[in-house]
């Protein structure tokens, strides 16, 4: 696949898949106001995905539109970070957990802080369409990040129970952040051409932002580890196919349906 298109899919799929995860909260939010807030954020993410996938489809020139890319690709063709696909319940085995709001807001903090850095850098992209999408998305992400940071501080520095849930989430999620910054040939190529940005160049800004919030939230960063997930190369976790099945079932049962 053309690396430029693949790079757009990475960005678009990450927004789409996290949007789908957050949409799972619709109707199940802890309070009505949060239910609406999270649904708004999910819709913003799906909106970002629409722009990015449409742009990728046009560049490809094979007649695939946003729907074809979102609903008619299979697991290995998706290029999202693994971080975005992990279930809202957290990931340890052997113990049944329901969806955890702490896990949701900690993941949001980690990913939206990355997105904020990424959009900032991409507004100078040589791909003018991508630069425009980045400029539009940056405003949305600034709010998403504020929402996430606010909740991480409230819950992290809240009760013993809410603190423990957020710490558990952070311990489980931090290893998946390695993928956001790990060196990668495709990213290197796109950065050299002025289209994309190296994850490594986003690390310092991300670190500063995340650490400041975690400190206020009285949460402790787990020790660094070498594990690096590979969702952006199409190697996904065991959770991903379930998400995809739910997301794609309607479009596949009724191809071309409109409402």
């Amino acid at each position, binding site marked *: 696949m053309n690396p430029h298109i693949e790079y757009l899919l990475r960005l678009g799929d990450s927004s789409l898949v996290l949007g789908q995860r957050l949409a799972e909260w619709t109707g199940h939010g802890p*309070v*009505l*106001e949060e239910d*609406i*807030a999270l649904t*708004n954020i999910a819709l913003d993410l799906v909106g970002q995905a629409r722009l990015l996938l449409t742009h990728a489809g046009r560049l490809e020139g094979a007649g695939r539109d946003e729907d074809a890319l979102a609903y008619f690709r299979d697991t290995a063709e998706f290029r999202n970070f693994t971080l975005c696909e992990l279930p809202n319940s957290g990931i340890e085995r052997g113990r049944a957990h329901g969806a955890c709001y702490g896990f949701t807001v900690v993941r949001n903090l980690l990913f939206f802080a990355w997105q904020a850095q990424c959009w900032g850098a991409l507004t100078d992209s040589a791909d003018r369409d991508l630069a425009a999408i980045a400029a539009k998305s940056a405003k949305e992400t600034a*709010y998403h990040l*504020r929402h996430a940071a*606010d909740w991480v501080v*409230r819950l992290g520095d809240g009760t013993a129970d809410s603190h423990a849930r957020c710490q558990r989430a952070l311990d489980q999620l931090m290893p998946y952040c390695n993928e956001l910054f790990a060196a990668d040939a495709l990213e290197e190529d796109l950065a050299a051409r002025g289209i994309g940005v190296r994850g490594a160049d986003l690390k310092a800004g991300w670190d500063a932002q995340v650490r400041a919030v975690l400190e206020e939230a009285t949460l402790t960063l787990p020790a660094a580890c070498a594990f690096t997930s590979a969702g952006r190369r199409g190697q996904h976790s065991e959770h991903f196919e379930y998400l995809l099945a739910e997301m794609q079932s309607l479009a596949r049962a009724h191809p071309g349906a409109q409402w």
Partner: protein
Amino acid sequence: MERKEWPLWEVFIRSKQGLDHRHVGSLHAVDAKQAVQMARDVYTRRMEGVSIWVVPSEAITASDPDDKAEMFDPMADKVYRHPTFYKLPKEVEHM
């Protein structure tokens, strides 16, 4: 575990064209900062506004509905308080 309701806030939104903040509804939030944030999500998602005020509902003192007769009814037959008996010169266009 003790379970408390979050306090109630009244939300006022100023639209792009409007000069005044108008009451649009209420919501529950932990504090004022969160109330503004939630008001943004609940009441401005269709571009309704450019400015938000939130006020703790408990800070509002309301008139008693049972006092309606003495409070408001006396005004019903005092049409002369409306400035509708003047002839306006044509030159005054927007009154």
